[in-house]
């Protein structure tokens, strides 16, 4: 029982641990040995950290399909978007939409099948609605990001049958601060600048003997990105011509116009932390203003007759989100039900799509979500949770791109997780049942009014994970077999979409007749460590009898005339029509990494890695926008205050792009980062770092991106930065 109980670690700074997930916390070297050899005597700080069996514990104790990114590894990967930040993680790809939008694709699944979670609750932005809507977080603020590739729907619900990304930003203080603490980071580079400051401390004087106290936290952040530099042409004219039968008249070279962005935000949180538990509240705001690359998302533009145009290129997305979060954790006197935790969040999200100074479309979403979890040790379980979750969501889109009607969605779920341990065996079980109701407003499709029905779904999910730890001489490892049967209710756009969706350059038509989607997954994981060698591999196979997908209808919506046409006459006005339908689908793939501690004392480690996923409908059609096969080599090293990484990634061509999609070419990408950090005399830590991405300036067209033919990934990018923890 590695983390079921409260642990106490003496730290020299408040936030711990900072290790990458591949370095078990329990194996952390003494803190005195982590620095540059200096020995600094600090006041002992007791940190209470509550382990969560579904993330921390499983990730590090077994080879289940979960991984965590934190510490310097996270800092080195922080990018402008969540997808870009996670794209080097095995099994994770970045569904970019220009450089300012990047959504994580987990084992080929994204959108409504994945959830981005902030502090365990949904981000509740519009990122699942449309590929051009970003996740409303600043990755630089993340303290820990967990990628849940497996049955995350069991605990988090809301349709996360393909996985979830859980971001911990610590905005509700959960650790008692007895003194003012801060963290600041600035970075600048060829792509833009980022600055953030985070402060936390006690409210008033906190006597050492105090059993409880108030702790506050505040942060502000700002990011500004320039137009993205790219190594060649923005538009792959041959690909566009093959898809639309027209050649764009305008193209750009060297930069992606209208890809600048700026975002800012801040939060303030306050908690009362004591022996009996904690009660905390945080309010945050986040706003972003980013452009969409030309050709991607154009409402209309006068173009001389007969001249195919790419688009106006000045469309901006201006999004705002206000979030109020609350957390209550109560330690009970009952040994079998030790902790009750209630999370609640209310968000208001609005985004305007602005072109030429005019607001064309406004999306508005209001969500209230509450989850109550009761830790338990019932029925012989060593740990587990019983929980309930309710959510009330209102979504409305008005204006030109109002492709979904105003819709109310209400859901309620019950779930339970159980862990049974009998060394060397470990069994995790999960079950969830959810009920969802959607009530749409009035809608029209192609000018005709449609009566949309309300729908009710009761998806249920089950998961089982059996792990076997072994030791063979000096070698040790584990084998994990995970099986889950998870289900989700169709999301609002899948049910009720009916209009031009310029972001994805499609005319989306929902299907009110959809059934719930079921996914049956098998995952076999293996971790092994023998001397200087370590290995990790996962193989998986997903089958869905009723995979929801967008079938291309083969015709175009003419946005200027507002009608359907069989042929595309003007590129900037043509939106291929798609219809949400269901068909059996299968996905299978693997992730593997083999590491070798080349110079253990110097911390030099070499690893080769690979991942692949193949998805297809059972009729043989390929699922669209699947990541390419990747393999590569990573070298990491640490010497004194220096820490660095060099990573080469080879992505093969994606020749199975899906119906009416275009293939993408292979690429070879090199990334590197170098970090120097030191501790000042009074224990403050300062780090300087440099990050270079796409070192060889490759033209990378991302097969998971809707915009791959219009906006390649950024070219060579250099960032330098300073991080200080005081």
């Amino acid at each position, binding site marked *: 029982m590695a983390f079921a109980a409260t642990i106490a670690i003496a730290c020299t700074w408040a936030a711990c641990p900072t290790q990458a997930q591949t370095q078990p916390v329990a194996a952390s070297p003494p803190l005195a040995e982590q620095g540059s050899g200096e020995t600094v005597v600090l006041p002992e700080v007791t940190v209470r950290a509550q382990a969560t069996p579904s993330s921390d514990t499983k990730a590090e104790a077994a080879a289940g399909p979960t991984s965590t990114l934190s510490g310097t590894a996270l800092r080195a990967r922080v990018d402008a978007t969540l997808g870009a930040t996670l794209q080097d993680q095995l099994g994770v790809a970045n569904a970019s939409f220009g450089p300012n939008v990047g959504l994580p694709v987990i084992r080929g699944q994204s959108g409504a099948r994945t959830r981005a979670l902030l502090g365990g609750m949904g981000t509740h932005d519009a990122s699942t609605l449309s590929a051009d809507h970003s996740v409303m977080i600043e990755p630089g603020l993340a303290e820990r990001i967990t990628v849940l590739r497996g049955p995350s729907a069991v605990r988090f619900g809301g349709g996360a049958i393909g996985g979830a990304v859980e971001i911990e930003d610590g905005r509700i203080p959960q650790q008692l601060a007895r003194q003012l603490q801060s963290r600041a980071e600035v970075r600048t580079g060829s792509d833009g600048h980022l600055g953030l400051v985070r402060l936390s401390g006690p409210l008033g004087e906190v006597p050492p003997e105090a059993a409880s106290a108030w702790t506050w936290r505040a942060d502000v952040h700002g990011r500004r990105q320039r137009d993205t530099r790219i190594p060649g042409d923005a538009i792959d004219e041959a690909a566009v011509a093959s898809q639309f039968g027209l050649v764009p008249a305008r193209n750009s070279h060297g930069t992606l116009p209208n890809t600048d962005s700026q975002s800012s935000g801040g939060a303030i949180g306050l908690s009362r932390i004591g022996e009996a538990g904690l009660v905390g509240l945080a309010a945050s705001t986040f706003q972003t203003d980013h452009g969409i690359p030309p050709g991607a998302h154009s409402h209309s533009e006068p173009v001389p007759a007969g001249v195919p145009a790419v688009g106006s290129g000045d469309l901006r997305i201006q999004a705002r989100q206000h979030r109020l979060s609350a957390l209550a954790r109560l330690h009970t006197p009952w040994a079998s039900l030790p902790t009750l935790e209630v999370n609640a969040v209310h968000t208001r999200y609005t985004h305007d799509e602005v072109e030429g100074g005019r607001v064309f479309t406004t999306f508005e979403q209001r969500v209230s979500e509450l989850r109550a979890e009761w830790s338990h040790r*019932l029925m012989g379980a060593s740990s587990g949770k019983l929980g309930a979750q309710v959510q009330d969501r209102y979504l409305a889109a008005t204006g030109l791109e109002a492709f979904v009607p105003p819709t109310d969605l209400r859901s309620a779920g019950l779930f339970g997780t159980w862990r049974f341990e009998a060394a060397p065996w470990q069994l995790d079980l999960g079950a969830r049942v959810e009920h969802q109701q959607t009530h749409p407003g009035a809608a029209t499709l192609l000018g005709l009014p449609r009566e949309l029905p309300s729908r009710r779904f009761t998806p249920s999910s089950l998961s089982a994970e059996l792990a076997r730890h072994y030791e063979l001489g000096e070698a040790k490892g584990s084998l994990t077999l995970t099986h889950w049967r998870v289900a989700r209710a169709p999301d609002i756009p899948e049910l009720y979409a009916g209009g031009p969706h310029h972001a994805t350059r499609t005319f989306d038509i929902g299907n*009110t007749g959809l059934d719930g989607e079921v996914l049956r997954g098998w995952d076999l994981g293996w971790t092994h460590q023998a001397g200087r060698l370590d290995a990790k591999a996962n193989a998986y196979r997903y089958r869905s009898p009723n995979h929801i997908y967008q079938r291309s209808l083969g015709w175009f919506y003419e946005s200027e005339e507002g009608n359907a*046409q069989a042929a595309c006459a003007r590129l900037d006005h043509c939106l291929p029509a798609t*219809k949400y339908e269901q068909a059996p689908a299968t996905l299978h793939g693997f992730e593997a990494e083999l590491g070798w501690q080349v110079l253990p004392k110097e911390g030099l480690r070499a690893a080769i890695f690979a991942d692949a996923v193949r998805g297809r409908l059972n009729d043989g059609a390929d699922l669209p926008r699947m990541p390419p096969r990747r393999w590569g080599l990573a070298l990491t090293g640490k010497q004194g205050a220096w820490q660095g990484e060099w990573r080469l990634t080879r992505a093969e061509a994606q020749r199975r792009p899906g119906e009416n999609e275009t293939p993408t070419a292979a690429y070879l990408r090199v990334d590197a980062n170098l970090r120097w950090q030191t501790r000042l005399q009074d224990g403050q830590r300062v780090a300087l770092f440099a990050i270079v991405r796409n070192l060889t300036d490759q033209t990378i067209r991302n097969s998971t991106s809707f915009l791959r033919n219009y906006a390649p990934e950024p070219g060579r990018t250099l960032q330098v930065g300073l991080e200080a923890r005081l």
Partner: protein
Amino acid sequence: MKAGAWCAVAMASVALLIGCGGGDGKGQDALSAPDRSELAGPVCTSCQPGVVTGLAASGAPLAGALVRLVDANGQQVQGLTDAQGGFNLPIGGLQGPVIVQVIGEAGGQAMVLHSVVRGNEVGKRFIQVTPLTELITARALGGMPADLLLQGRVNTQRLSASALADAERQVEALVRPVLDLAGVGAVDLRLSPFSADGTGLDRALDLIALSPQGQGHRLRALWQAPEDALSIVAGAADPGRTLPTANASTAQAVASALDSAPADIRARFDALQALLTTALPSDSALEPFLSADFLHAGLDRSTHIQRVLLRNDPAHRGGYSLVGARFDQVRVLRVHSADRIWVSWRVTPRAPFEAHDEAMWLSREGGTWRLQGDGQAARLRVRHALSLLARPMGEAEVLGLPGAACPGSASNGPCRIAGGQAGLPLGGHLDLGTPASAGGDDHFGRLALFRSQASTAEERLQAHIAHSRLLATPSTAVQAHLLFEIDARQSAPLARRAVVTGPGLPTGGVTLLRPPTVAGLPEFDHWALAQASDTDTASEDWHGVPDGWCADREASACATDWALVGLGSSYRVELFDAQDQSLGQAQAALPMRPAPAGSSVSASDARFGRWQMSSANTSPLTLNWLLGSSVASGDALFMRAPWSPPAAPGVRPVRLDLAWHRAGFPPTFGEEVHREVVPTSDATSSPWDINVPARSGWRSTWLVLRLTSTDRHGNRYIHAISPGNPH
């Protein structure tokens, strides 16, 4: 309750709910979307939202044709094509795929064609209605569109975009050689706009001939003989079958026939028309228009000239002649060689006579086109007819009349009401006739005739007039018939008997007899159905066969079966002379039947033109008026018969008929029928003033008035009346 127990309950609830998982089961998709194939074809720039725009053509435009849009629920929108065959009809409240039906004439040929417009194509695509869309529609529907519409069995579920696209591809493959010959490349046979200008797709339509037949069609290229036509069963796959490719000489002959022959033939018709402008010309003036070996409808050149071209009916028989006639709408239907082609055209006599189509071979002799005839033994036309008649009183009702009794038993007539009962005088009885269950006779349920036992003929007549009555209710029953019209003038002169065989008819066929000749003219225009009493000529001017009809009631399996009758059903007539030697044959195909089926047509149907005798302020048509004093005073027939034309669009009156029966008095053997015919049209609906001079010593015995109307298919709607009940 302990916390553990609560948890156990919660877990049990979770497990239970998981076991119940699912949804609301409402799997209806309210966001149906068009498929690509629905949007195939060029965008229609001239279309308007909510309006079905298209063109109906079959080598020539279907000008002035009736266009009907019919949806799955049977809702309709109707309109007419313009002079170029174009139409624009608002879709109104019609839902889903809509069948477009066009009923009209092209090149002198009556035809009904269909096409399909899907909901998303309305206002966006140009809808063709051609013989090729007829094939596409039939293939997609899996049946003959006209029949399915009539029967209300159109399954629009079959009209998915993909099904239509498949059907279009199959039909295109079928006619590809013809399309190639016409220079038509990639085309959507249903949605590509075209003009009826003889080029491109219109040229291709010139090169094919399509005729309905049974549960399918016969399709041939212009250079093929009818017997070589492809037989296409509606809805059945035809993998690999195509029309033949024309070789170079055939292609040249076809080009000549289509490019130059029609103009030359039109010039010949113009010359013929000029000859007939004001008066009938001489035989010799007409001979150059006919080939020496002319044989048409049983008539050689000179006979045809006399009987057809120089026909000149007396006024009381309508006064028909070709003086002032127009010949137009020339269309080439078959190319045998560059010098011999089968041509149809339209003959439009002066008003108010009904136009009709004509078709025969023309041969080019010395550079001049001459009529050569069709080589058949008679001119046969088959039509549907709906007759609005008197409804006979039912058997039970007749037998329920006060005093009605049938000697022996009710089923063993004849039945009667004895004198002294029911207001009848003594010395006679009211003859009710024999019910059908006892063998029956024609007047049972229709007429009750008083048989007086008075001593003098005059007294017996007066009692007959006073107490006979009509039991039937006039103008209340609709009966469907098939009319077999063998032209009394255009049939082999020596023929006396004709037997029609075809779908739905008794195995032995239907026998028709030549009408008697009066003053050198056939007494009726058409051969008539043989009655039991007929020998070698017909006595009744009627050539219609009702469903279930049987010429010989004793014969088994003689009943007609209309279930076997459909659009394009082919009928053959064989003519025999007095020695029963066959003189030849003729064929005709049935046009589309009127909707709905005959048994469900209401007596108030607007397609019937109607006699309005009840509104006449003179001469009510009653038995005692007809048989009584008003006629007795002068032995002449004076009556005013007001009538109204059909109210239904597309149906117009064509003729008024009178058959006045009279016999010598005191009764002797024999009866004569005085017949009058008035051709008419919409413009002449003024009351018909009938004035028939008396014949000394003859008295009225019966009278029948028929008002015949026709629709675009040539289907007849006949309102027949006889004297009504005097009471």
